[in-house]
């Protein structure tokens, strides 16, 4: 190295860095490419091939997924559960997040701490009593919370509210307070100042939070499984538990489950990143 001039050395390390980055990108992308490729193969080919590309690109798996596995139902359930949860959580988290960002009320610190504290409870800890409670409610009050989308929506709403309001709190806190104060002086009510001034300004945050909620709900398996809600992950798990080694259908199902997330990613990449990282940054 010593014989090389500093400029040459710098160029060399830069090329090496490019090469390393390329290697990482290939390694990171390979499993996804493999999943997509397998979804176009026949199961027979998956079990015998060593070739990278499918012998014949066929869409049979996707058709079978809908016709044999009833994947359309799971897909619809997932959309209903995640969509409704997202709407309710976004609305409620907006109110609470704003209150926590703007108002100094007694108990605000305790509330904020409790919001974060909920993240430390293992889901299984409250799943056990919730399961029995839900069965009790069904027996005594006739409200079907087990095995229905409603049960999942109720639970998911309560689960994702704390972190969502925490994300929104950050977005509201970043808005200059003076704008709302000016509105108050002009005769606006405090709620009006929130609704007409702060909320429109926090729209990027609202979108980010909504994406965060939707994707977290989309990825939820444990509660849906135990409460027998037929969302996509539960459907896949039920199916593959019955018919093992249908790798063709499993690949296709994974691709279909990934597609909505991919669409959100390409349409709203910036908001998706800010939502998912804001979940982690205070």
């Amino acid at each position: 190295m010593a014989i090389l001039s500093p400029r040459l050395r710098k160029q060399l390390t830069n090329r090496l860095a490019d090469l390393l980055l390329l290697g990482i990108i290939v390694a990171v992308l390979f499993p996804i490419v493999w999943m997509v490729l397998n979804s176009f193969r026949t199961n027979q080919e998956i079990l015998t091939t060593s070739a990278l590309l499918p012998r014949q690109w066929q869409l049979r798996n996707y058709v079978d997924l809908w016709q044999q596995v009833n994947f359309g139902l799971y897909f619809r359930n997932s959309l209903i559960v995640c969509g409704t949860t997202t709407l309710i959580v976004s609305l409620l988290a907006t109110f609470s997040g704003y209150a926590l960002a703007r108002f100094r009320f007694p108990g605000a610190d305790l509330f904020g701490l409790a919001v974060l504290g909920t993240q430390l409870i293992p889901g299984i800890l409250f799943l056990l009593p919730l399961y029995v409670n839900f069965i009790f409610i069904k027996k005594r009050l006739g409200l079907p919370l087990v095995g229905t989308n409603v049960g999942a929506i109720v639970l998911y709403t309560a689960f994702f509210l704390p972190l969502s309001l925490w994300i929104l709190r950050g977005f509201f806190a970043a808005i200059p307070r003076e704008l709302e104060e000016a509105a108050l002086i002009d005769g606006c009510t405090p709620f009006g100042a929130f609704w007409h001034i702060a909320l429109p300004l926090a729209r990027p945050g609202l979108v980010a939070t909504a994406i965060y909620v939707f994707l977290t709900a989309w990825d939820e398996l444990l509660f849906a499984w135990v409460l027998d809600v037929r969302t996509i992950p539960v459907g896949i798990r039920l199916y593959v538990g019955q018919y093992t080694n249908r790798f063709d259908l499993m690949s296709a199902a994974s691709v279909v489950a990934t597609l909505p997330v991919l669409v959100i990613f390409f349409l709203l990449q910036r908001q998706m990143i800010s939502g998912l990282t804001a979940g982690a940054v205070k």
Partner: protein
Amino acid sequence: MQTEREAVPAIQPKKKSARSSNLRSRLRSLRQNVARHRLAYLMIAPTVLAMLLVHLVPTVEAFYMSLLNLNQYTLGQFLAAPFVGLANYRFLLTTPDNPIVSGLGNAARNTMIYTLTVNAGTLGVGMITALLLNRSFRGRGLARTLLLMPWVVPTYAVGLLWGMMWLRDRGVVNMLLVDWLHLLSDKPFWLIGPNTLWAIIIPTIWRQLPFSTVMLLSALQTVPLDLYDAAAIDGASAWQRFRYITLPLIRPVVAIMLLWGAIFTVFGYNIVVMMFGNGGGYPGEWGDLLMPALERQSFRYWLFGLGAAASTMMMFGMMVLVMVWYRIFRTSLIQE
């Protein structure tokens, strides 16, 4: 510090006669407070209700359940099931040979190794990737977008996908290692035996890499460039610049990342559950984690009392972990 605190006179014990009027005035001020902050309380009310009904009440119920002999025979009585005190905890702590307890013990050990390895791996590889991205070159935006792709794959699909990739005979990992690259002469088992730990660790790092890369990259971009220039003039090597300039400045982000990474891995469920037997199998002694193990023991065998006791212990374990985390990163969090 300590002496200063002691120098402040302790609060005088209130006289008995003053107490009732004191209470009344306190009530009055409470009512005034509620009136003054009505909007704030109205706005947080739905969330408070949700947290009470779905977080607090079930958690308290679970604590109480952990003191009951709640199994398939007594489940109908629920909270009226026989009270056994700390017997569930004693059982978990003193009978390591019982198959259920040893199964949970294995899962606890795996969860610890998994949490440490995944987070160390994510941080290390994420740091390298972020540093590589934090240079100016053509196609930087494209490279970043491509590196984010594992993020769009739902975790249950990650488990399913890698479960297929790890298959001994037809899995692509062994194809790559043996048939294509000839790095190994024999195809190893990935989904049986101690290798299963790697089979769950590597996909999790793969899935978490985009998150840590994005976080670290945005942290790296906040470091003022003139600090590096000044250090370079002073003759600091690249490693020294990283160690003494970059690292201290991005420490708060690393702290937050590690906390969320710990929550994600300690409570990890989807990847493990979907990987073995394509979602229907037992992960085995070296592939099981606490969440899947607890779900299985509780709901397959209806051992709710024992499951609640083990879950409670898990929660205290998590709290200890967070306290350790807080002690390590306290200074950088306050600076922020």
